[in-house]
């Protein structure tokens, strides 16, 4: 591969796990194996072209961080071939090896030196690093006094301002305030434009899709899929969904107070049939059966539509506060008709809550997760699907 910046072929990494330190000594003495092998990566092949950005996704323990460590040259593969071009690969991760007693300024200088900066480059780049961090007077205070957001600022500033040939971002953008996050994303885009190669590992699938054209999905140390981000991410989302469906079944977090139970929740279409795909009429009705055994117990109900991938609550409808709709004992069937559901592509669930009339205490809850799917193009992102129209006119 002539233009590959990162080229991996059959990459494997196996860790040896010892239960106790003494086992290692015994193994040396007796020459009998006393460890377990844990294959963190098994036969991973891919390549990254110069100037390309590759997203890396997968569940916890899938081998993402191990892979990044190999690429950064921190750890060595057990078997397989890995070639990287370009001198500096800076890995960006929370707690990027700062000394807590040291000032931010000194830590930045040391980190930059570890990444291979020469004295001349240091003189040129250190001021830019410090300026980018916007830590101002805090730069002269020990890093142990920093908040996690300030820590991230410093780490990010070093990692991006040393102008690495390959920038590796490992789940680092999740902390920090919105302003700095945006600054980081802007900087990453700027580096992309300048032709840097970026490996971006994150659980934020939205970030992965927007920053990377291609995405690698790791599962249990193997490449599950590699390809265009929108496709891979969508498949991964479906996979996550399928898994939660398997583990949770069709519903339930039953009763909380004991007196009230929500016995069923279903989502039906306009004609009363169970809804699995939101149709063009964008209408869905939620039906719930509620039972209350205690006399005099008052409660009201709330219905939420939830995005299955991240449990984002898209909307919550409840009866007006103070409106005591229900009083036990008794059982009810309640239906809420939701119309004009302009939901973007994805899987959605419904959650029904029974709460005290003031809305302050939860009495019972039942989930139907996921309940239905909304269609759309794979280029959509977000929750809402708004009617829109493009207009453009070339200016003279």
């Amino acid at each position, binding site marked *: 591969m002539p233009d590959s910046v990162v080229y991996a072929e059959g990459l494997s990494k196996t*860790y*040896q796990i010892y239960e106790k*330190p003494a086992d*290692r*000594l015994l193994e040396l003495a007796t020459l009998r194996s006393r460890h377990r092998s844990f294959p963190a990566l098994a036969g991973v092949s891919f390549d990254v072209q110069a100037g390309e950005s590759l997203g890396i996704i997968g569940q916890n323990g899938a081998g993402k961080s191990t892979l990044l*460590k190999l690429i*950064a*040259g*921190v*750890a*060595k593969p057990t078997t397989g071939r890995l070639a990287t071009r370009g001198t500096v*690969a800076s*890995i960006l*991760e929370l*707690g*990027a*090896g*700062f*000394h807590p*007693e*040291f000032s931010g300024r*000194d830590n930045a*200088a*040391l*980190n930059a*030196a*570890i*990444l*291979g*900066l*020469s*004295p001349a480059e*240091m003189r040129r780049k250190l001021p830019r690093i410090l300026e980018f961090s916007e830590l101002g007077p805090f730069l002269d205070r020990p890093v142990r006094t920093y908040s996690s957001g300030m820590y991230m600022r410093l780490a990010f500033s070093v990692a991006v301002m040393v102008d690495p040939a390959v920038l590796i971002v490992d789940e680092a953008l999740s902390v920090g305030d919105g302003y700095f996050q945006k600054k980081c994303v802007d900087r990453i885009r700027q580096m992309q434009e300048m032709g840097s190669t970026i490996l971006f590992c994150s659980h934020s699938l939205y970030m992965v899709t927007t920053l990377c054209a291609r995405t690698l999905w790791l599962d249990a140390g193997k490449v599950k899929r590699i390809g265009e981000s929108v496709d891979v991410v969508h498949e991964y989302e479906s996979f996550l969904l399928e898994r939660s469906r398997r583990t949770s079944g069709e519903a339930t977090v039953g009763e909380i107070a004991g007196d009230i139970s929500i016995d069923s929740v279903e989502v039906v279409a306009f004609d009363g049939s169970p809804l699995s795909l939101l149709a063009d009429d964008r209408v869905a009705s939620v039906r719930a059966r509620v039972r209350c055994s205690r006399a005099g117990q008052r409660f009201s109900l709330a219905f939420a539509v939830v995005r299955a991938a991240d449990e984002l609550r898209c909307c919550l409808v409840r009866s007006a506060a103070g409106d005591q709709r229900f009083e036990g004992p008794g059982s009810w069937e309640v239906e809420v008709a939701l119309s004009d559901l302009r939901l973007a592509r994805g899987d959605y669930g419904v959650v029904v809550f029974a709460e005290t009339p003031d809305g302050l205490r939860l009495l019972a809850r039942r989930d139907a997760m996921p309940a239905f799917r909304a269609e759309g193009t794979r280029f959509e992102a977000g929750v809402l699907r708004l009617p829109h129209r493009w207009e453009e006119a070339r200016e003279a």
Partner: protein
Amino acid sequence: MSAGSSAFLAYQLIKRDLSVRFTGSALGLAWAVLQPLGLIVLYWFIFGIMLPGGKLGQGGGDYVYFLISGLLPWLGFSEALVRGTTSVVENAQIVKRLPFRSELLVLVPSATAVIFELVALVLFLALLLFTGRFQGALWILPIAIALQFAVQFGLSLVLAVAYVIFRDVLQLLSFGLSVLFFLSPILFEVRPAFEIVFRWNPLTPLMGFYRYGTIGGHLPAWGEIAYLVGFALVAMTIGLSLFRRAQPALVDAV
């Protein structure tokens, strides 16, 4: 990583180590002098005054100078070994995250120990000149320091690798150092009848070098010198090659 930027990184790491050593303590850098001074006073009182004085070192009445000339290199040596042993584990955050030659982390304690030792030696030489007791040959001191550095760096590399895998090494080391302290000619001069007990110890000729360079006396025998030089070279060679070979495993195990 080029040799130039490695040297620059080593410089940065040593600078960090020097300034971080005493940060947070009120007396700061003064400890670098106060600690050895306290030990000198203690040993001088016990071995120079309380026990029959003057019989332990050379030339009768100057026991305190004899003591200092041996104790300063010993303090540097033992500190380098202890801190070198733990250096990789203590910097696990860096070793696990950043790609670089981590033997530099082991080099740093050896280097800072020598720097502090040098400061103490200069003060000691000033004292000798001031009291008119300087009879040494200064030219030998750089050689002595270089040999000491090679021995302690080489041993530290081996110990650092071992410590990552077996944390028991630190226990063994502190025990070993207290034995070595008494099996080196620091508090006393070796009597010919017992030379065999000290002959295996490369610190014996090393102490001889330091004494020859400060308070005067004889150079160690050629055989002893050859042993010390050989030991230093072997320690460095084995240490470096072992460390380079073990480094990938260290990243996984630390």
